């Protein structure tokens, strides 16, 4: 019972310590199983998150550009050597700029990028509330205006009186 289970687990693990990105196999076998597993995972994540600097909108794992395959190899080398994700990201940003990050850091020039949509939404909400309120105010006023004041009442009565007399 135990044996086939162990066999299945070991097969599962050997599949996991190999990242397949862009049709290429990137085996991770330098460390312990757990290390290999996290490295393969990190490699897959970074290949998704880093943008090919030559391409307009493709990440490293999608692009066939020469630079993308070079960077995949570099990424593989660094991940395999056990480098931290943040160190690898810094390595890339130092060379290719913030452009390579699909998940840019929050700082001066990226503030608009991060908070622009939220600000626009809040602005839209504000305009909406403003419009609704002023409409409501206006319709209330209209209702008020519908009530007749004393002068108007007198005039209505006069008119009614007049038509009554004419009808006779």
């Amino acid at each position: 019972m135990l044996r086939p289970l162990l066999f299945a687990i070991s097969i599962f693990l050997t599949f996991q310590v190999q990242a397949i990105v862009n049709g290429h196999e990137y085996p991770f076998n330098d460390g312990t199983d757990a290390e290999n597993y996290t490295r393969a995972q990190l490699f897959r994540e970074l290949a998704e998150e880093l943008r090919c600097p030559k391409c307009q909108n493709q990440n490293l794992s999608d692009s066939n550009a020469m630079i993308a395959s070079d960077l995949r190899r570099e990424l593989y080398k660094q991940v395999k050597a056990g480098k931290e994700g943040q160190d690898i990201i810094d390595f890339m940003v130092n060379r290719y700029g913030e452009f390579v990050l699909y998940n840019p850091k929050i700082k001066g020039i990226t503030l608009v990028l991060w908070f622009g949509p939220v600000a626009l939404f809040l602005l839209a909400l504000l305009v909406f509330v403003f419009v609704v309120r002023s409409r409501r105010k206006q319709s209330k006023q209209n209702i008020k205006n519908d009530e007749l004041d004393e002068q108007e009442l007198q005039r209505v009565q006069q008119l009614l009186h007049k038509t009554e007399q004419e009808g006779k």
Partner: protein
Amino acid sequence: MKRWALFLPFAIFVLLGFLLWRALYLDPKDVPSALVDKAFPEFNLPTLVDKKPRNVSDIKGQVHLVNVWGTWCISCRVEHPFLVKLAQNGVRIVGVNYKDDNDAALKWLDDLGNPYVFSVDDEDGILSMDLGVTGAPETFIVDAKGIIRHKHQGPITAGNWEPLEKIWLKLNAQAGTLDKTGE
């Protein structure tokens, strides 16, 4: 509602229209280089012609254009005659032969002329990666202290040299004053 508020949507429309119209003429490939105003990366590579090892100190002391090229790159062939002309006019150009076949590169220099003070053989693309090169040709203007001052993507031609020449002249002028104070 106040009367001016009625013009708000129109104003937003005009603003958006202007932004989108501006964006039509921006080049999305024109990505700012991460290396401008940083020191030229360290390297230790043999030259293409005489295999002499060169490092970053070999490009210090004078203003250089550092041109990344390869025989596989078609735009490099386009810009090559202009580089030869620049070299004849006294512009010091250092080549980085990017992931290229040595024989093909040497034949290229024989056939088309060699505008380079020297070309280093960056066979594995290590220096090019440190330079953040995404494709050839790319040209860096490096000042006399070895600081990268400008990056140009794509071929240099007679048509786009003028703004680069300004930078080159300015850096040379600065280097000139540096030399005087250094004496």
